[in-house]
């Protein structure tokens, strides 16, 4: 038993989290977290790099102004949650026990959903003992998550709106295309949601005939049957709601079976380096709406800064850059103190500040904020051309 206690004590000491903040040199601590292992590792690497790049940019310009008018630098950290719900909860509890004032993350929707569930649902609700810690999400994109808690905010694109306008635009560009057929990664929450609740319904709204969908699983390897159904349906537009691994698998099978289509549409999350790395040749021409592309000097500067720190700015990680800039403005407007004693008040002030935002700046233009803590971001349509993503159309231009 003595040995057991020693081990327990050792574990306790090793797990201890810093809580003391020196009043003399105050820093504003922002805690990033996301997936650094498993198949989604590249997301974590990108977000981490972007957060550090953004903090560097802010600190080089003097830092953030605190309530008493002094300037404090921003300090960012990054924790790995392995894209695992339990580990995500532990990471956020750990961050919330430190003197970080806000969290930025996570990568995966299946972590974000439980995470938002442990937060207090209504801010200031005495009867709700949920965690009171603001979280601003850059990547997890499954529809409608931020409404779970008033402490949860997201800066992710609104897929519903993006695909609606994409299909409207396609109707003007390809008047001869009349029908849509879907391909969906059936066991992955985000892909499923995006096909059934977004692509399928939105394309029907625009007047397309939806001819059905082929389904496969996240780690499937054999798509012959599904692609044959797809070919048989003979639709003009094929919309694939799947992540890069199966998107590539299906595209390769489509090439083998010589599936004919007029337009190929992909999932927002697939407009990344991963897809081009896996199957640039077969993905040629795929059209994807995305909330980031290096189309203006600000966006290019952000992408370069991230690249300098070993990450790539894509629609997900660029959102983290925007989040840092938004947080800087919110922190300065709310006037936080960034002392050891003010942590709780600072967090509340940041939450209230975030909740009251109606619009924010973004790399592609102004971002609208909804009452539910979600963003409505400007977007462009990109397509894969000669092995890289090129802007096809900018609806705001």
């Amino acid at each position: 038993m003595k040995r057991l206690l020693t081990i327990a004590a050792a574990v306790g000491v090793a797990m201890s989290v810093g809580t003391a903040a020196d009043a003399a040199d105050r820093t504003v601590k922002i805690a990033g977290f996301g997936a650094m292992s498993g198949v989604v590792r590249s997301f974590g690497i990108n977000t981490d790099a972007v957060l550090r790049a953004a903090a560097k940019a802010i600190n080089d310009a003097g830092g953030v102004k605190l309530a008493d008018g002094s300037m404090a630098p921003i300090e960012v950290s990054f924790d790995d949650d392995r894209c695992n719900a339990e580990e995500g909860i532990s990471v956020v509890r750990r961050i919330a026990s430190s003197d970080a004032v806000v969290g930025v993350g996570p990568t995966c929707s299946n972590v974000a959903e439980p995470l938002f569930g442990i937060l207090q649902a209504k801010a200031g609700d005495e009867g709700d003992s949920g965690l009171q810690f603001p979280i601003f999400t850059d990547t997890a994109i499954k529809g409608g998550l931020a409404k779970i808690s008033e402490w949860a905010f997201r800066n992710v694109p609104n897929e519903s709106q993006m695909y609606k306008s994409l299909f409207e635009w396609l109707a003007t560009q390809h008047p001869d295309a009349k029908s849509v057929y879907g391909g969906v990664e059936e066991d992955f929450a985000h892909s499923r949601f995006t096909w059934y609740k977004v692509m399928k319904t939105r394309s029907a709204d625009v007047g397309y005939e939806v001819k059905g969908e082929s389904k496969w699983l996240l780690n499937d390897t054999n798509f012959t049957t599904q692609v044959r159904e797809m070919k048989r349906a003979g639709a003009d537009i094929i919309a694939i709601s799947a992540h890069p691994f199966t998107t590539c698998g299906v595209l390769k099978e489509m090439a083998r079976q010589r599936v004919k289509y007029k337009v190929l549409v992909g999932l927002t999350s697939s407009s990344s380096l991963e897809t081009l790395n896996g199957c640039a040749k077969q993905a040629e021409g795929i059209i994807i709406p995305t909330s980031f592309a290096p189309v203006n000097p600000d966006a290019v500067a952000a992408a370069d800064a991230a690249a300098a720190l070993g990450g790539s700015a894509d629609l997900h990680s660029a959102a983290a850059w925007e989040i840092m800039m938004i947080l800087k403005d919110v922190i300065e407007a709310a006037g936080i103190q960034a002392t050891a004693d003010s942590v709780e008040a600072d967090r509340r002030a940041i939450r209230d500040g975030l909740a009251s935002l109606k619009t924010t700046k973004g790399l592609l233009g102004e971002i609208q904020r909804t009452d539910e803590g979600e963003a409505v971001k400007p977007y462009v349509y990109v397509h894969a051309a000669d092995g890289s993503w090129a802007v096809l159309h900018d609806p705001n231009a």
Partner: protein
Amino acid sequence: MSDFWWQVIDSVQSVLDGMMFGSIYALIGIGFTLIFGVMHRINLAYAAASIGGAYASLAAFQLLSAPAIVVFLCAAAASGVIGYLVYICCFRFIPTEMPLATLMASVGMLILIDEVVVHATAGMPEPYPAMFDDVMIDLDPFWVRGDLLMIFALSVIAMLILLYVLYRTRLGIATRAVAQQPSAAQLCGIGQERTNAATFVITGALGGLAGAMVGASVGILSPLLALPLTVKGLIVTVIGGLGSIPGAIVAGILVGGFENVFQYFRGVTERDIYVMLLLFVFLTFRPQGLFGRISTRD
């Protein structure tokens, strides 16, 4: 043609595709069954090592842009080396009377191999070369994927080589002797450890080929592949009968065809339930599997 005939044609086509893809399950199943036959242990890191070998061969593809067949052979060689490492880390030093410890160690190895791959590639899907992937053999109304046919052929060749090694070489005789009577084999001067290690290298090479075949048939590699292959490989091993190589071959092709047929009729969400049901049917009515013997040892 009427809808009915399309359905008949499609279901037959599904079975054909599934059976050819099933040859990959067969290769993985052979690996499990061979190690089980010789050491009476499960090596859960086997499928992960196979995918790991395929990843290692990417170096030959990306750096030297070697032709596909050379890349496949590199995968087999790399996986053989990984197989040896798995033997050293998980089986060599753990006492044989502690089967649970070796089981757990191989789980740790599975996690480790997967994570090494993830670190090397940031988890991104990597394109993998294929042979004949633009060939479609048209047998109206059916057609056969050239690359799957090639995979099928390569798998059959690999199995024939394996059977030759097992039944016509000294190493094979030693392996089978250790499998049947380890103590008697030792008395005859057959080194048990050397035989065990050789088994891991041989099965590793076979697995590397399977990993390469998976990569070639999908066109990309991802760490996502390891776990489903482990599960399907284990199912194939049990259905085929523990320790039976012909059993693993037949069961692999059977499971491949079976799962595609149920995918066609019942949809992808229910597909695996029927594969599990097939397994339960075997466990209930034929627990020794297709070609397994009731008792094997002692």
